[in-house]
């Protein structure tokens, strides 16, 4: 029996610690701990709700669009504002490109090194690598010369003994299964993807002024103007440029990401039986196709809202956001209602109350509180959120393109849909979703162009911009499917200022600790029975945890601006 501690979990956003008990080469128990906390929602207390998006956005620089969008949706719901269609479509374009870029970065830069042995690539034959690459796709960068140059670059690295970011990896671990040529191909695409993500995200600069932290969100719409006769607004030239970049994104996903995913996965089909976890999947649904309030209706969403329970794909259950509540039984907070009762977001509290070991420490007291994350529950159930949840809900709901794409990938791997409930299923779902959404982004651009061509230039509904038009008290929530899963913001406005602001985040759903009943969170559950060949080199833990694409700055947000107890300022 061994206690394995991995802290920091790297190649994620933020600060995550995993402690696991390993018996006879398998994980028998696991604890997930978020180790950083800032208090951004506390900081929102008393501020203008029209500004909340730009504070909330700073929760995360990786998911740089998601909190801004969900915040404006929450305030719009509270005040009864529905933005013009152009603004909805611009938000969709920004979000769709965020998905494609974020998923590609996850696959190549955060997750790939769990499956790809960089050092093994040194043994590859560039000619054979080229043959392999050309056999799986028509991605153009596949010549022997190119692979030879990549190999030389790697060799010079290793010879100089300065591996930089690749130092101390688990190279040579028996769980690495790819042939040398597949490793070299993947390393080459790792480098290509660095350029791709940078160039593709120019979409955000065009529509948002910059990336990270786009600056054109607005309660009631967007602040990027549309005018075919102005050079300072979205015009025909801008739209054409967007089309070129979106098409390049689709090409990269079709020619590199999805073929690489299938090629790598084919060597790791044992990971379709590992990392299944909770078996409950939640999706709020996303991508409105018309000007609607998503908090009031899920009609017309491109990806459906729904709940799948117990891996049962025969039915999709309806979702009532008011059934969300959060526990703090194992989180470093205290509730006025006691330690073991969950609170729904509109009644939420957050009073930090650290009871963990004094740093520096070696081990957490997992019987007590052990994380800065809360434990969100839906109807008192632990659920998984993210790409797998979305694809399963859409698959079960009969979404035609999702069924086609899932069928294609599973067919290539010669496996059935039951394998989706796994570590590899999560990774595959993210690739499938990238293909789906890269395709959809071009259709949304078509819709935007058609709407502008019809003479609609509106990007903002300013009827309720003036706080003088607001009621004395208003409450609302915003729902969003972020790349990592279901996100919701909950706002209470009193006399034009924020009285309470709550955020329930995807990585909190997935990475949160146990609740009062001892129900594990999604990471903790998925890690059970994961094999660990060498407790000194727990590569397998990284595989399962990375399959969720953790985002801890998001997860360890803090809530409850209503807590006056937080307001004192202490600076040493």
């Amino acid at each position, binding site marked *: 029996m061994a206690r394995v501690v991995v*802290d*920091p979990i790297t190649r994620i956003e933020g600060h995550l610690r995993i402690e696991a008990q390993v018996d006879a080469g398998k994980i028998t128990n696991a604890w997930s701990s978020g*180790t950083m906390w800032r208090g951004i929602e506390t900081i929102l207390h008393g501020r*203008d709700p029209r500004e909340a998006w730009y504070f909330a956005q700073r929760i995360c620089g990786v998911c740089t669009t998601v909190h801004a969008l969900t915040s404006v949706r929450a305030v719009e719901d509270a005040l009864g504002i529905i933005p013009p269609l152009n603004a909805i479509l611009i938000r969709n374009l920004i979000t769709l490109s965020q998905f494609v870029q974020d998923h590609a970065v996850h696959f190549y830069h955060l997750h790939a090194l769990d499956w790809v042995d960089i050092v093994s690539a040194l043994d590859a034959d560039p000619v054979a690598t080229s043959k392999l690459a050309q056999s799986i796709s028509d991605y153009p960068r596949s010549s022997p010369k190119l692979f030879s140059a990549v190999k030389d670059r790697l060799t010079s690295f290793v010879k100089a003994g300065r591996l*930089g970011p690749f130092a101390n990896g688990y190279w040579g671990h028996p769980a690495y299964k790819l042939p040398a040529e597949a490793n070299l191909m993947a390393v080459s695409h790792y480098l290509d993807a660095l350029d791709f993500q*940078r160039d593709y995200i120019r979409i*955000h*600069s065009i529509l948002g*002024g910059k990336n990270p932290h786009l600056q054109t969100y607005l309660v009631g719409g967007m602040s990027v103007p549309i005018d075919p006769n102005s050079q300072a607004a979205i015009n025909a030239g801008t739209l054409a440029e967007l089309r070129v970049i979106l098409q390049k994104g689709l090409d990269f996903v079709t020619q590199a990401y999805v073929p690489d995913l299938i090629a790598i996965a084919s060597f790791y089909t044992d990971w379709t039986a590992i990392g299944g976890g909770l078996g409950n999947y939640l999706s709020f649904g996303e991508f409105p196709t018309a000007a609607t309030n998503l908090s009031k209706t899920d009609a017309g969403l491109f990806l459906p809202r729904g709940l799948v329970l117990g891996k049962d794909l025969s039915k999709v259950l309806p979702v009532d956001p008011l059934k969300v509540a959060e526990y703090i039984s194992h989180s470093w907070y205290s509730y006025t209602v006691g330690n073991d009762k969950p609170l729904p977001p509109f009644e939420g509290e957050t009073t930090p109350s650290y009871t963990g070991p004094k740093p520096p420490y070696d081990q957490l007291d997992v019987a007590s509180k052990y994380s800065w994350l809360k434990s969100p529950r839906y109807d008192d159930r632990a659920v998984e959120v993210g790409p797998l949840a979305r694809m399963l809900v859409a698959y079960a709901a009969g979404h035609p393109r999702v069924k086609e794409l899932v069928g294609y990938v599973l067919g290539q791997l010669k496996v059935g849909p039951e394998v989706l409930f796994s570590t590899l299923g999560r990774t595959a779902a993210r690739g499938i979703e990238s293909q789906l959404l890269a395709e959809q982004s071009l259709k949304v651009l078509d819709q935007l162009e058609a709407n502008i061509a019809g003479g609609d230039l509106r990007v903002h509904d300013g009827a309720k911009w003036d706080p003088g038009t607001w009621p004395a008290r208003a409450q609302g929530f915003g729902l969003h499917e972020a790349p990592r899963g279901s996100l919701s913001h909950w706002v209470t406005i009193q006399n034009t200022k924020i009285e309470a602001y709550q955020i329930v985040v995807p990585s909190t759903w997935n990475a949160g600790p146990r609740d009062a009943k001892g129900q594990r969170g999604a990471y903790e559950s998925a890690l059970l029975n994961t094999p660990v060949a060498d407790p000194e080199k727990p590569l397998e833990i990284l595989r399962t945890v990375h399959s969720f694409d953790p985002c801890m700055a998001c997860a360890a947000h803090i809530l409850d601006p209503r807590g006056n107890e937080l307001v004192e*300022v202490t600076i040493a």
Partner: protein
Amino acid sequence: MATLLERLEANGISRRSFLTYCASLTTMLALPASLTPQIANALSKVDKPSIIWREFQDCAGNTESFLRSRNPGVADLILDLLSVDYHETIMAAAGRQAEAASDAAAKKGGYILVVEGSVPLKDDGVYCTIAGKTAKQHLEELSKGAAAIVNVGTCSSYGGIPAANPNPTGAVGVPSLVSNVPIVNLPGCPANADNITATFVHYLTFGSLPARDQLGRPLFAYGERIHDSCERRAHFDAGQFALAFGDEGHRKGWCLYKLGCKGPNTFNNCPAIRWNGGTSWPVGAGHGCVGCSEPEFWDAMGPLYQHLPNVSGFGVEATADQFGVALVGATALAFAAHGVAKYAQHRITAEPAAQPVAAGQPTEED
């Protein structure tokens, strides 16, 4: 070990292109063109300096920005020009092996310590721990042997959003905790990739940090006000203001001052270099500057959608040092007066966020 130039040549990039690229860096760094050969020489011979990049109370926004580097490209930067020996977001190693990589680099000394995110001090720093140690403990250990510290973003420079009122975790920036090590601050939310890159290139070329203002910001990037190099400045001078998002002025690219733009109080080079490879920048896209490279901007630069009440009327030639650090609350109200006067000339009657106007103050151009 192949130098960058050798590797570029192996990839079919000529020495001539390399020199062109070095010339653009020279311009970026606001250096005389005669220094281009020196930069080219340094970059083609460079012995990769060790980088330890630590994230504390951060959002990884500056890491993401760094990953958008273009000149040099991100892959050249993280693989060939620098030895990125520790960076949680991109490194292969995890857990104990990750910390061992940091320890090994620290033991050698002479590294550049890059810090992203603020450091919480309240309650003995329990609000941010990595490998069981607090951010403050890591910073104390790593600052000792650092040749220089580069603070990327406003959080590590000045405390940033975690330090915004009421600062629930007692967050501070690195300069509040470290002395005796040369420090450069690259504030911004996040810092622009081009400014991060240029700072590294400056260090590689000259072996020292670039000249800085009183707030620790390099003059090559933060030496001028947004307002003075803004493409919409002519509209400000002509009194042409967007008054509502989506109105005619907004669509035509008029000045965003009335919609809350903080460009007049902000020192940064966004209008000159723009973002994401020169694609656009916030004001260019249609939203006012939020002042994100100024200390305490979260509290000092609000409200977001009201125009600045108290901006002194200094000239184009002023730097942040001449201007002083007390940006908001400056005495003269002339700036507001100027805006209102021009506004009236254009027969626009509504003033959405009227501010008191002091009579008898000189206007900016007087």
